[in-house]
């Protein structure tokens, strides 16, 4: 009896931490649902993608590639490179997981590694248990999936010109994610400028203008992130994602930011 109440309070604690994330995800998912319908997906398929992927930029790029009739190699290459960062997060989270977890419990926890959930889970104040993580995961999944359904259905109901106008919303969110860190960090600023210039050049140059969207994003990403890594291989922010011991404050801040921002404004990144 006693263990049961302890478990359920761990679940509820996780649930509370996930509430602001779930609210933020709902807003971003509305924009994703709209753009998925714009790219030719039905609300059902868009919802299925959100439920199975639980990721922001990766889903958006995937939908763009499929909508443009891209090949499966372009699809998996594009989505994979966008999702590479999750390797870093899962490697860090791995260190904090309780030893006794079944295979499928590890799979579910891995499925739940998004930028914001990771930020909360990696915070030193968080003690990860299976029940706690399940609680943390619940509302973000509901918010992300439900928001996608609502956005996609709205996309089918609203007048075409309004849907066209809202097609820009997700791009605006990407701008809001990229610009503030670029203002604070020279390496990030260079990464943003080089990737933008490379993407525009690849589109403008006659030789490469026929390159599909996904490949263009991949080439621009490798150029920009490659240059920044060569030039600034030891940027201080890099360690915060990995060494929980060395970066306790940063992780705390990130978790607080993710929670607070998602609650009020959704300032943090989409999942």
């Amino acid at each position, binding site marked *: 009896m006693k263990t049961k109440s302890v478990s359920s309070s761990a679940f509820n604690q996780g649930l509370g931490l996930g509430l602001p994330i779930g609210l*933020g995800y709902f807003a*971003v998912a509305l924009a994703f649902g709209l753009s998925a319908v714009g790219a030719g997906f039905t609300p059902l*398929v868009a919802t299925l993608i959100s439920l199975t*992927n639980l*990721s922001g*930029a990766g889903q*958006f*790029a995937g939908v*763009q590639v499929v909508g443009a009739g891209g*090949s499966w190699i372009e*699809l998996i290459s594009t*989505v994979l*490179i*966008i*999702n*590479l*960062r*999750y390797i*870093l*997060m*899962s490697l860090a989270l*791995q260190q904090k*997981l309780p030893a006794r977890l079944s295979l499928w419990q590890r799979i579910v926890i*891995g*499925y739940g*590694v998004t930028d914001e959930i990771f930020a909360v889970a990696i915070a030193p104040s968080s003690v990860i248990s299976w029940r706690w993580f399940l609680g943390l995961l619940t509302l973000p999944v509901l918010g992300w999936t439900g928001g996608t359904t609502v956005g996609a259905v709205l996309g089918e109901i609203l007048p075409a*010109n*309004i849907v*066209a*106008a*809202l*097609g*820009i*919303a997700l*791009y605006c969110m*990407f*701008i*809001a994610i*990229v*610009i503030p860190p670029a*203002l604070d960090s020279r390496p*990030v600023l260079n*990464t943003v400028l080089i*990737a933008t210039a490379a*993407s*525009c050049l690849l589109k403008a140059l006659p030789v490469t203008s026929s390159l599909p969207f996904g490949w263009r*994003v991949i080439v*621009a990403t490798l*150029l*920009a992130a490659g240059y*920044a*890594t060569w030039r600034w291989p*030891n940027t201080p922010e*890099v*360690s915060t994602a*990995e060494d929980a011991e060395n970066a306790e404050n940063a992780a705390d801040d990130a978790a607080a930011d993710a929670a607070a921002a998602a609650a*009020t*404004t*959704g*300032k943090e990144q989409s999942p």
Partner: protein
Amino acid sequence: MTMPVAVLLMFLVTVLPRVLPLLLVRRPLRSPRIRAFLYYVPFAVLSAMILPDIFDSTGSTVTAAAGFAVALLLSLRRRSLVVVAIGGATAVIITDLLLGLF
């Protein structure tokens, strides 16, 4: 490529990078270069996806440029994600209405 295949492929390339490290790796990633690269990738990806594609996002380059300008200004002032999105979309709708007047 059919829709179910596309959904399955997206699921695999999203979940595997998250799940495999939890199942296979038992020690932290020490190489600072790999960690730096993985840190920069999201910024590079999002930037590469914004331009020039944002100009095709509304069906009119003029309205899209207005939305882009407003979103850029708001984010330079560190406004939140939702405010930037609503601001950009509103600018597009207003520009579209203005274009209709002339």
